[in-house]
């Protein structure tokens, strides 16, 4: 009586396996198409970033940071971070990581913003999606690696796929919140002047939700960065893989250097997107 009876067992693992293999058999073509789409985009971004002379990238980072944060020394600092990354010998790997992040974020936004809009406009959609998003955010991140691996095998594509799944909830949630918190008086006024649903959305709701959406973009980007390191376990080349190798070989120095590059990348991306969000907020408040 002390042990749980073996006869009461739920073969959940088998079921999931069965479902996955059913998906693979019946939807294989579909996922192949998605996979090659992602790969195509990713390779182009990656090739472009590696093709750009490093000076250009550093300058670009510096100027963008300066424009967005409105302080020249912050621009200089961000540019210096990128020079540091290069001098540590991780330029190419950083660009690869950056490419995955950019691809994952673009796709996340392309999925997340429309989903957020849908959620804001339909209470039914919200009540279905909200628990799913909650569950997604409480799940440990490496759990997403498994379905990604099964659907796409090893490589960059599953890494991007897992990153998207992990990173997309914040932008969905904050788009939804942003639109819902637009004052009903303002939306009513838009309707009273004969706006179509589209016009209300694009002329009033989205612009007023923009600060919230930008916070979502910031969070999604940061989560993508976190995930891309973990996703290196399933074969995405980049900084994450470097850290992973260092751990396996117990090379502390190498791990530290690669880890530092990740942190630097994170700071630059976070500060820039954060400043963008703050700027949006100010624009709608004035």
């Amino acid at each position, binding site marked *: 009586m002390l042990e749980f009876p073996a006869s009461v067992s739920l073969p959940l693992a088998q079921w999931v396996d069965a479902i996955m293999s059913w998906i693979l058999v019946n939807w294989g073509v579909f996922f192949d198409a998605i996979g090659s789409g992602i790969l195509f985009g990713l390779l182009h971004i990656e090739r472009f970033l590696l093709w750009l002379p490093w000076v250009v990238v550093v300058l670009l980072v510096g100027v963008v940071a300066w424009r967005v944060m409105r302080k020249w020394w912050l621009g200089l600092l961000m540019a210096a971070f990128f020079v540091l990354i290069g001098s540590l010998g991780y330029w190419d790997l950083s660009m690869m990581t950056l490419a995955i992040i950019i691809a994952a974020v673009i796709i996340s936004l392309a999925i997340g913003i429309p989903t957020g809009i849908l959620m804001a406009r339909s209470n039914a959609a919200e009540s279905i999606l909200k628990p799913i998003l909650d569950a997604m955010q409480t799940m440990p991140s490496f759990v997403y690696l498994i379905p990604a691996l099964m659907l796409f095998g090893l490589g960059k594509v599953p890494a991007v796929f897992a990153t998207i799944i992990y990173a997309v909830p914040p932008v969905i949630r904050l788009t939804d919140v942003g639109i819902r918190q637009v004052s009903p*008086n303002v939306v009513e006024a838009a309707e009273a002047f*004969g706006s179509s649903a589209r016009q209300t959305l694009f002329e009033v709701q989205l612009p007023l939700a923009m600060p919230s959406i930008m916070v979502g973009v910031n969070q999604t980007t940061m989560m993508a960065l976190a995930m891309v390191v973990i996703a290196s376990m399933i074969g995405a080349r980049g900084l994450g893989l470097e850290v992973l190798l260092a751990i396996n070989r117990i090379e502390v120095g190498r791990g530290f250097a690669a880890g530092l590059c990740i942190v630097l990348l994170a700071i630059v991306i976070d500060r820039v997107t954060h400043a963008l969000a703050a700027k949006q907020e100010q624009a709608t*408040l004035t």
Partner: protein
Amino acid sequence: MNGNNGNNNNGLSQSGETCIDVRGLWKIFGHDSEKILSSDACNSSKETILGETGSVLALRDVSFEVNQGELFVIMGLSGSGKSTLIRCILRLIEPTEGEIIISGEDICGYDNKQLMELRRNTTGMIFQYFGLFPHRTVLDNVAYGLKVKGVGKEERYARAREVIEKVGLKEWESYFPSALSGGMQQRVGIARALANDPEVLLMDEPFSGLDPLIRRQMQDELIAIQAEVQKTILFVTHDLDEALKLGSRIAIMRDGEIIQIGTPEEVITAPSDDYVREFVQDASPAKVVTAKSIMEQPRVLLYEWQGPKTALALMRSNRLDDAFVVTRTGGLQGMVTIEGLVRLIRNKGNFLHEALEPDLPVSTADMVLEDLFPLAVSTRYPIAVVDEKGKFMGYVHTGTILGSMIQEKVEEEKEMGEDEEKEEGEVQKDEKMEVRTKDIKDIEEETRIDA
């Protein structure tokens, strides 16, 4: 206090055509609204319905008509359903049942597209809480309705600037609403509604959020705008003074029902039930009773081309001390008195206009008692009443005005003391009469000699 309020329609400018016709409008908030409506439950009170079904009855069988060019006021306490009603008219809230006919078409049958067209082209709405777009400048706020319609950038900005100037915000067009005071924001709201040049304006407590001084100013501006552009306006307020000041007719609502519709005077002087009576008890007739409603027609009206002796004869045979003189087209020229005429004849004058009394008090038809009062105390003549074009319409005895003011005072304070004033007046009059009789006798003799 005055007997003719039943047929007295205060609206000066209605063409009489119905513009908005609301018939049997119901609105029940809640899940089973249709079911409640089709059952007997809909006859019970608002509280009962809320208690039994959990649904809120916001409008019960509301019917009224608004004429073209009329300013129609809907008044009622908080929660009586005013906002719900005005929103239903644009279907910002879907009515549960009923017909809303705007310019001859039942808009309840409209699909989304038709509804959009209606809102774009026919109506304009002004909100209690302004509902301005915080992310757009004043100019872009005002131009919004035109933008939605697809009017080109230049044209819509030109039109918006025109309206912004009209509401006196010219220097503010590039500011965001948050930089403006409440009164200015509401002007933006008004400009935004006017930019589309809609036939119908719907205003939901537009001035309630403003302090009294600005509020009065805005009311005056609305009256001025209305005089200029002649819109059909449906105006919601919970403020009686505002309703009386602006409305050509007023509908009073309670718990979702209209319990009385009438001109301001009807509502004040003949409240349909205790609720209305209580509602209007603070309003003094001085604010609503107009010159037009208490004026009288003179027994004798003199024409400018008549000779002084004819005039004198006419007045004498009617036992009048004074008479009004009008032009060929009925325009008021002035007033002559017996003394004036006697003097004129003595001086061998031939034209009535030489004998006109100076400083004749004149009132317009829609002046209210309160405004007539200062005129009445500063003159010894009756007050002439003219229309906008200066045409003579009738006259008001100063006694009538003073009498009604005094009566009101007495009612209010149950105090005496005013009678002295009255007696004094009568004494003076008697003295005058003596003088006149003497003069008349003289003249009579003279005319006899002439003949």
